[in-house]
C-alpha cells in the first residue's frame, strides 16, 4: 500500500477524487436542503454540449476550456429551466427534464459531429460520459483546484445569507436579501461543482455526487455547519475509495464506482445514524412499545386487585387478554421474569391465573403515583 500511494498516477487520481468529493459535498448540502437535488442532474447533463464546444474552441483536449464551456452551457440550461417554469404553466419537473434531455441530445450531436470530422485528439471526449480517472493528469488538477477554491471561498463569504435563504427563503426576502441573485449564484456554484467532476465522474453520474454526500451527512447532523463539513468529508471518502478502485481495476469506469461508494455511505447513514437512523429508531420504538405495554398490563392487575381490596387477587389471563384486546401472555411472562407477578395454581377447567408479587404492588403503585404527579403538574 505505501508503494501504491507514492505511485504518481494514483496520487493524481486520489487528489482529484478528493477535490470532487469536497466541493460536491459542500454545495450538495445546500441543494439537498433546498429540495433542489435534481438541479444537479440537469446541470451535469447539460454540461455535455459545453464540453464539446470547449473542445472545439481550444482545438484540443484542454481541460480549462472544456470546463469553461461546460460551465456556460450548464448555467444556460439552469436559466432556461427558470424561464420556462416562471413564465408558463409548466412545473419545475418538466422544465428540468426538458432542458436536461435537450441539452444532452445537443451534446450527443456535437460529440458525434466532432468524431465524424476525425483527428485522434477527440478520442478522449468519450470519457466525459462516464468519467475516466486514468485520463486525469497532474496538469488537470490545477483548474479543478481553482474551481474548488472559488466555490469554497464563495460559500465562506456568503455563509450567512446562504444559511438564511436555505432555512427561511421568505424571511430572507423580507429581510432585504437579494434572494433571486443569491439563488442564481448558488446555482452557478453547484454548476462549478458539477464541472469539477466531469472528467472523473462523468456527466451522466455527477448528479449523484451532488446528492449522496449531503443526504448522508443530513442523517448525522442537525446543524448546517456540521452537515456541510461532514458532507465534504464523506464526499472525499467516496471519491478516494471509488477513484482508487477504478485505478486498481482498469476497465471499470470511475464514475459508477465513486457513485456506488457514495450511495453505500448514504444507505449506511440512513440505517445507523444515531438520531435519524432507521435501525436506532426501530429499536427505540420497539423498546418503548414493550415497556409501555408491560407496564400497562401490570397496572391492570393492580387496579383489579385494588377494586377487590385484595392485593393477592388472582386475575384470569383471559380477562387481561380481553381487556387489552391482545394476547398478553408474553408480557405477563416478562413481568414474571422481573419478579413483579407470579403464576398461580388454577383449576383444570379454568385458564391460567396471575397474581401480583410484593415487588409488583410497589412498582405499580410507584408508577401510578408518577402518572398522577404528571397529570397534576399538567393541570
Amino acid at each position: 500500500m505505501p508503494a501504491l500511494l507514492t505511485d504518481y498516477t494514483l496520487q493524481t487520481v486520489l487528489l482529484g477524487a478528493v477535490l470532487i468529493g469536497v466541493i460536491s459535498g459542500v454545495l450538495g448540502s445546500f441543494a439537498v436542503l433546498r429540495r433542489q437535488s435534481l438541479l444537479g442532474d440537469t446541470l451535469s447533463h447539460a454540461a455535455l454540449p459545453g464540453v464539446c464546444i470547449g473542445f472545439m474552441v481550444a482545438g484540443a483536449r484542454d481541460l480549462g476550456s472544456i470546463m469553461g464551456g461546460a460551465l456556460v452551457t450548464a448555467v444556460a440550461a439552469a436559466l432556461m429551466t427558470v424561464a420556462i417554469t416562471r413564465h408558463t404553466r409548466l412545473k419545475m419537473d418538466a422544465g428540468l427534464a426538458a432542458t436536461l434531455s435537450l441539452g444532452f441530445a445537443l451534446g450527443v450531436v456535437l460529440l458525434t459531429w466532432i468524431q465524424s470530422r476525425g483527428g485522434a485528439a477527440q478520442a478522449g471526449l468519450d470519457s466525459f460520459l462516464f468519467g475516466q480517472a486514468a485520463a486525469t493528469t497532474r496538469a488537470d488538477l490545477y483548474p479543478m483546484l481553482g474551481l474548488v477554491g472559488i466555490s469554497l471561498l464563495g460559500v465562506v463569504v456568503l455563509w450567512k445569507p446562504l444559511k438564511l435563504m436555505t432555512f427561511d427563503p421568505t424571511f430572507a426576502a423580507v429581510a432585504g436579501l437579494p434572494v433571486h441573485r443569491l439563488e442564481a449564484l448558488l446555482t452557478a456554484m453547484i454548476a462549478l461543482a458539477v464541472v469539477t467532476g466531469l472528467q472523473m465522474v462523468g456527466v451522466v453520474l455527477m448528479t449523484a455526487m451532488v446528492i449522496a454526500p449531503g443526504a448522508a451527512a443530513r442523517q448525522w447532523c442537525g446543524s448546517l455547519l456540521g452537515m456541510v463539513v461532514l458532507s465534504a468529508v464523506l464526499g472525499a471518502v467516496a471519491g478516494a475509495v471509488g477513484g482508487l478502485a477504478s485505478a486498481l481495476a482498469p476497465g471499470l469506469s470511475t464514475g459508477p464506482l465513486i457513485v456506488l461508494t457514495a450511495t453505500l455511505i448514504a444507505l449506511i447513514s440512513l440505517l445507523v445514524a444515531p438520531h435519524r437512523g432507521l435501525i436506532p429508531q426501530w429499536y427505540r420504538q420497539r423498546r418503548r412499545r414493550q415497556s409501555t405495554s408491560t407496564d400497562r398490563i401490570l397496572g391492570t392487575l393492580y387496579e383489579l386487585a385494588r377494586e377487590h381490596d385484595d392485593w393477592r387477587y388472582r386475575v384470569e389471563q383471559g380477562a387481561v387478554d380481553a381487556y387489552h384486546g391482545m394476547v398478553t401472555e408474553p408480557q405477563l411472562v416478562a413481568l414474571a421474569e422481573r419478579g413483579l407477578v407470579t403464576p398461580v395454581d388454577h383449576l383444570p377447567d379454568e385458564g391460567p391465573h396471575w397474581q401480583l408479587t410484593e415487588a409488583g404492588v410497589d412498582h405499580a403503585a410507584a408508577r401510578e403515583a408518577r402518572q398522577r404527579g404528571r397529570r397534576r403538574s399538567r393541570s
Partner: protein
Amino acid sequence: MSLLAEPLVAILLTGMLVGTSAALLGSFLVLRGNSMLADAISHSILFGIAVAWLLSGQTSGPVQIAGAALSGVLAVFLIETLTRTRRLRDDAATGLVFPALFSAGVVLINVTARDVHLDEHTVLLGEVGFVWLDTVTVAGVELPRAMLATGVMLLLDAAFVLAFYKALKLATFDPDLARALGLAPGIIFYAHLALVSGTAVAAFDAVGVVLFITFVVVPPATAYLLTRRLLPMIVLAMLIAALSAPLGYALAIALNVSIGGSMALANGPFLLLAYGWRRWRQQRHSARAMATQSGSPSA
C-alpha cells in the same frame, strides 16, 4: 428485402414509433408533475438490461424486455420507499436511487460483457442508424427487430390508455377523488410506469436511454403550452414526436452526426416556438390590459 427493412423506412418508422409511444405515456407524467420519474426510469433500466443480458445472453425478446422493465418499476418503488421513511425528500431519493442502479448496470457490463456488442455507450446513446441490420421475420414479412419491439410497445401503450382513459385522467388530475371512487390510482400509477419502463427498454437500442427522456417530456410539455385539454394535448404531443423523427434524420444526414441524438434534439425547436408564442401572447395580453386601464380610468 421487404419495404419495412429498407434502411430509410426502418430508421424513420422506428424513430416515429419510439417518439409517439413515449409522448403518449409522457403526457400523463408531465401533467402529474412526475417528469423526472422518466429520467429515473430510463437510467435505471440499464441495470435490468445488464441483468437480463447476463441471464439470457440477449437484450431483445419479450422476456428480456419485461425483465429489464422490472428494474424501472423497482426504481420507482425504491424512491417511494425511501421517501416514505421521511429521512429524505422525494427529489433526493430520486437522485440517490437511479444513479446507483445505473452505476450498478455499468459496472455489471464492464465486468462481464466487455468486447461484446452491449456496452454502456450503446445503451446511453443508441444507434437508430443500425436498426435495419438486425431483422426478424414475422408472418412472412421481414422487419427490423427494434421496429417490432417498439411497435408492439406502442400497441400495448395505446391499448392501456384507451382502456383506462377515464381512470388515468382522474388519477392524474384528482387522485383523491379517484381513490374515493375505488379506481385504485396507485395501481394505475404503477401500471403506467411499468409501461414507461417497457417502452424505454424496447427503445434503448434505437435512441438510447437518455434520448428516450426527450420524447417522454418535451413533446407533451410543448403541447401543454398550446392547449389545456387532455385529448388534444396527447394528439399534439404524438404529432410533434412523429415530426421530430424525420426532421432529426434530415439533420443527422446533413451534418453526419448521431441520428438518435438529432431526432431527440429536433423536439427542441417545437418547445422554443411554443414558449415564444406563449410569451408573445402574455405580453400582448398585458399590454392590452394596461391600455384599457389607462384609457378608461373612470370605469
